[in-house]
C-alpha cells in the first residue's frame, strides 16, 4: 500500500513538473525533466504491472538515478522549484529505498523459485511466446532424456510434441497471442509427450501463461501418468467387472423374484401368506380366490379364523397354538364365501415375508377325495358286514354239509348192507334152490353193493380232506411210508420189489400225509401188479432248491393224452375189469398236496410205468 501511495505522490510531482508551471527553464532542464518523467513513468508502469522481472526493474532504476543526478545538479540552481524538487527528492529517495528492499525480497523469492524449479518432481518447462524453450528443469531432463543445454532455445514442439499434435500446438499459441483466448491454458489436460528416444509418454499437462515485459511466457508442468493410467485402467476394469456382476446379480435376482412370484401367482393350488401372530392374510393367489370365492380385497381384510365354520373356530385356536415349526399338514374344514364348507388339506411353512415372521399356507381342496374316502369306508364297512354274514352262512352251510355227510355215510350204507347181507343169506340158505346162474347174479348184486359202499366212503374222505384242519408237526416221511407199507401188507400180499430211499423230515399233518402215501403206494402196487418183475421206488431229489418226492413204478402206466383227467374226482384211466377203483384216490392226493402248499404232477407211458412227483413246501 505504501508503495502505491508513493507512486501516486511521484506521479503528482511529475504531473506538476511536466505542466511547465515554471517560468525559468532552459531547454536542458526540459529535456532532463522529460527524461526523468519517462523514467518514472516506466518505473511506475513496471511496478503497477507487477511484472517482477528483476533485470528490467534494475535498468529502469539505474536510468532514473542517472537522470536524477543530472536534475539535481542542474535544476536546483536554475529553477525556482527548489521546494518542489526537494519534496520530490525525498519522496523518490524513500521510494528508492522501498524498491531496493523489494529488490532484495524479489531476489530471495527468485532463489526460492529456482529451488522449487530445480527440485520439483514434475517436469517444468518454460517457453517464450515463440514457443522456444527457456527453462528446462532436472525433472524434465530425467523424464524426457534431454539435458537443459540441449533444449534451451529449441522449439518445444520439436522436442516434446508428437507429430500429430504439432500443428495444433503451434496454432494454439498463435491464437492465444492474438486473441488472448486458449482452451488449453490453466487447465490440466492429458496428452502424450515425446521422449528423446522417440517413445511417447502419457503426461498430464498444465500450461499457465505469464506476461513479462510485454512478453508472454508459458510455464508448462508435465507429470508422468503412465503408472496412474495403468492403475486407473485396472480400477476401471475392476469397476466394469463389478458393475457387470452387480448387473448380472440384479437380473438374476429379478428373474428369481419373478419366478417365485409367478410360481405363487399362477399356482393351481390355493396359496396365501398369513401375518403372525394375527393370522391376517398378507397375500393370496388367484387359485385361492377361485377356490374360496372371496375377492382379493376381501381376503386381505380377513384372518384365517374367518374362513372356519363357527363350530371349528375353538378347535382351530387350540390346535393352532400347539402347531410349531414348518411342514404342518392337516385336513381342516374351510368356509367358502357362499357359505359352503370344503375339506382343505393344508400344509403350513413358517417363513419370513417382507422381513416379518409369517406363515405360508398351501390349501388343497380334498372335499371330493374325502367324500370318496368316506364312501370307501362305508363300502368297506358294508363289505365287512356282508363277509361276517356270509361267514355265518358258510358256517351254517358247513354244518349242514357235515350232517349231510353223516347222513349219506349212515343212511346209504344201511340199505347197502341189507342188499349185501340178504344176498349172502340167499346164497347160504337157498343154495340148493338156486342154479349156478342164480348164484352168479346174486354175487354181482353183492359186488355192486360193496362197490357203492366204497364209493360213499371215498367221497366222504375226499370232502373231509378239503375242510378238516391240518395239524402240522415235524415228521419223518420214512416212518409214514413204513406204516403205510405195513398196513398194506396186512390186507394183501405185495409181490413188487419195493425200494425206499431216505426221505427226510417234513413239516406236515401226519394223518393226512399217511393217506397221501397210502393212495400213491397202493396205486403203484395196483398198476404194477400185472408186471412180471414189479418194481416200486420211493425217493426224493432236489429241484430248484426244493425237495421233490416221487413214487415210481414199472406198471401199466398211462397215456399222457388223458393227463388232464388224472387228478379229477371219479376220473379213471382204466376200466374196472382191468383195475378196480373209484377214481377218488388221486383227487384226494391232489388235495392233500395242495393243502400243504405243494404241487403234484405225474409222468407216464402206456405199458412203461408211471411216476408221481410232489412237493410239500409248507
Amino acid at each position, binding site marked *: 500500500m505504501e508503495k502505491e501511495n508513493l507512486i501516486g505522490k511521484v506521479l503528482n510531482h511529475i504531473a506538476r513538473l511536466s505542466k511547465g508551471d515554471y517560468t525559468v527553464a532552459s531547454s536542458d532542464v526540459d529535456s532532463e525533466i522529460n527524461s526523468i518523467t519517462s523514467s518514472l513513468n516506466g518505473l511506475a508502469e513496471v511496478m503497477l504491472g507487477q511484472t517482477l522481472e528483476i533485470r528490467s526493474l534494475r535498468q529502469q532504476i539505474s536510468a532514473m538515478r542517472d537522470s536524477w543526478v543530472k536534475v539535481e545538479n542542474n535544476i536546483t540552481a536554475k529553477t525556482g522549484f527548489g521546494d518542489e524538487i526537494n519534496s520530490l527528492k525525498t519522496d523518490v529517495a524513500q521510494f528508492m529505498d522501498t524498491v531496493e528492499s523489494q529488490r532484495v525480497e524479489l531476489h530471495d523469492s527468485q532463489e526460492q523459485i529456482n529451488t522449487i524449479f530445480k527440485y520439483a518432481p514434475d517436469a517444468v518447462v518454460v517457453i517464450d511466446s515463440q514457443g522456444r524453450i527457456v527453462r528446462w528443469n532436472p525433472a524434465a531432463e530425467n523424464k524426457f532424456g534431454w539435458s537443459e543445454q540441449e533444449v534451451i532455445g529449441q522449439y518445444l514442439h520439436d522436442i516434446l510434441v508428437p507429430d500429430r499434435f504439432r500443428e495444433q500446438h503451434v496454432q494454439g499459441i498463435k491464437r492465444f497471442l492474438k486473441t488472448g483466448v486458449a482452451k488449453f491454458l490453466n487447465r490440466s489436460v492429458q496428452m502424450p509427450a515425446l521422449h528423446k528416444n522417440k517413445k511417447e509418454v502419457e503426461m498430464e499437462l498444465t500450461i499457465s501463461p505469464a506476461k513479462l515485459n510485454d512478453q508472454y511466457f508459458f510455464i508448462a508442468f508435465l507429470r508422468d501418468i503412465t503408472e496412474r493410467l495403468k492403475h486407473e485402467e485396472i480400477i476401471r476394469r475392476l469397476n466394469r467387472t463389478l458393475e457387470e456382476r452387480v448387473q448380472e446379480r440384479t437380473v438374476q435376482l429379478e428373474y428369481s423374484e419373478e419366478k417365485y412370484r409367478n410360481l405363487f401367482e399362477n399356482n393351481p393350488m390355493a396359496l396365501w401368506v398369513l401375518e403372525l401372530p394375527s393370522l391376517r392374510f398378507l397375500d393370496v393367489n388367484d387359485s385361492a380366490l377361485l377356490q374360496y370365492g372371496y375377492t382379493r380385497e376381501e381376503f386381505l381384510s380377513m384372518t384365517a379364523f374367518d374362513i372356519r365354520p363357527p363350530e371349528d373356530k375353538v378347535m382351530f385356536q387350540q390346535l393352532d397354538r400347539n402347531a410349531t415349526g414348518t411342514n404342518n399338514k392337516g385336513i381342516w374344514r374351510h368356509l367358502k364365501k357362499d357359505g359352503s364348507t370344503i375339506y382343505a388339506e393344508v400344509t403350513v411353512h413358517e417363513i419370513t415375508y417382507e422381513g416379518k415372521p409369517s406363515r405360508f399356507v398351501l390349501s388343497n381342496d380334498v372335499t371330493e377325495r374325502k367324500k370318496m374316502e368316506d364312501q370307501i369306508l362305508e363300502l368297506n364297512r358294508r363289505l365287512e358286514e356282508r363277509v361276517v354274514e356270509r361267514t355265518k352262512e358258510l358256517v351254517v352251510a358247513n354244518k349242514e354239509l*357235515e350232517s349231510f*355227510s*353223516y347222513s349219506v*355215510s*349212515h*343212511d346209504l*350204507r*344201511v*340199505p*347197502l*348192507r*341189507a342188499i*349185501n*347181507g*340178504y*344176498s*349172502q*343169506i340167499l346164497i347160504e340158505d337157498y343154495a340148493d334152490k338156486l342154479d349156478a346162474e342164480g348164484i352168479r347174479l346174486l354175487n354181482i348184486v*353183492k359186488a355192486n*353193493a*360193496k362197490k*357203492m*359202499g366204497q364209493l360213499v*366212503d371215498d367221497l*366222504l374222505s375226499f370232502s*373231509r380232506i378239503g375242510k378238516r384242519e391240518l395239524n402240522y408237526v415235524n415228521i419223518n416221511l420214512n416212518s409214514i411210508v413204513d406204516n403205510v407199507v405195513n398196513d398194506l401188507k396186512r390186507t394183501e400180499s405185495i409181490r413188487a420189489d419195493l425200494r425206499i430211499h431216505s426221505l427226510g423230515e417234513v413239516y406236515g399233518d401226519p394223518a393226512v400225509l399217511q393217506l397221501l402215501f397210502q393212495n400213491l403206494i397202493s396205486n403203484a402196487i395196483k398198476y404194477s401188479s400185472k408186471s412180471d418183475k414189479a418194481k416200486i421206488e420211493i425217493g426224493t431229489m432236489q429241484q430248484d432248491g426244493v425237495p421233490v418226492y416221487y413214487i415210481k413204478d414199472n406198471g401199466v402206466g398211462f397215456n399222457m393224452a388223458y393227463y388232464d383227467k388224472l387228478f379229477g374226482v371219479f376220473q379213471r384211466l382204466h376200466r374196472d375189469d382191468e383195475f378196480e377203483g373209484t377214481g377218488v384216490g388221486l383227487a384226494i392226493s391232489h388235495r392233500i398236496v395242495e393243502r400243504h402248499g405243494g404241487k403234484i404232477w405225474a409222468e407216464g407211458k402206456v405199458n412203461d410205468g408211471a411216476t408221481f412227483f410232489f412237493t410239500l413246501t409248507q
Partner: protein
Amino acid sequence: MNVSDGIEILLVEDNMSDAELTIRALKKRNLTNRLIHLKDGAEALDFIFCQGEFVNRNINNVPKVILLDLKMPRINGIEVLTKLRSDERTKCIPVVVLTSSKEDPDVEACYKLGANSYIVKPVEFDDFMKAVSELGFYWLLLNHPPQND
C-alpha cells in the same frame, strides 16, 4: 324167574335188517340163547331200568353186553349211554357201539361217555358177520365183568 331175567346180550337196533343180520351172525356162534332185541332207545331204557313193559324185571340181572346203535328215533344211542353211565347200578355194563360209518361225529362222544368199544358195520356181509361174531364172542366168553355182590 322172569323171561327177561338172565339176558346176556341186549341188542338195541331200530333197523330190522341190521338187527336180523346181527342176530344171524351171533347165532352162528351160538350166542343168541340169551339175547333180546329192543327196537329203540326208549325200549332199551325201559328194559334196563325195569319200567313200563319191563316193570317186573329184576334190575340186578344186568346183561353181559349191550350192543347199541346210535342213530335211532325218539331216544338215540348217546342218550341211552348217558343214562347208563350216570346210574350206579348200570354204569359198569359193557357197551359196544355199533355205527354205520366212521364219519359219525358221535363216535368221539361215545368214548368220552364211556363206551367200551365201537365197530363200524361194514357193507360187506362177510366182514359184518366176522366183526359181530368176534365182538360177541369176546364180550360174552372172554370178558370178566366186575361182580355185583
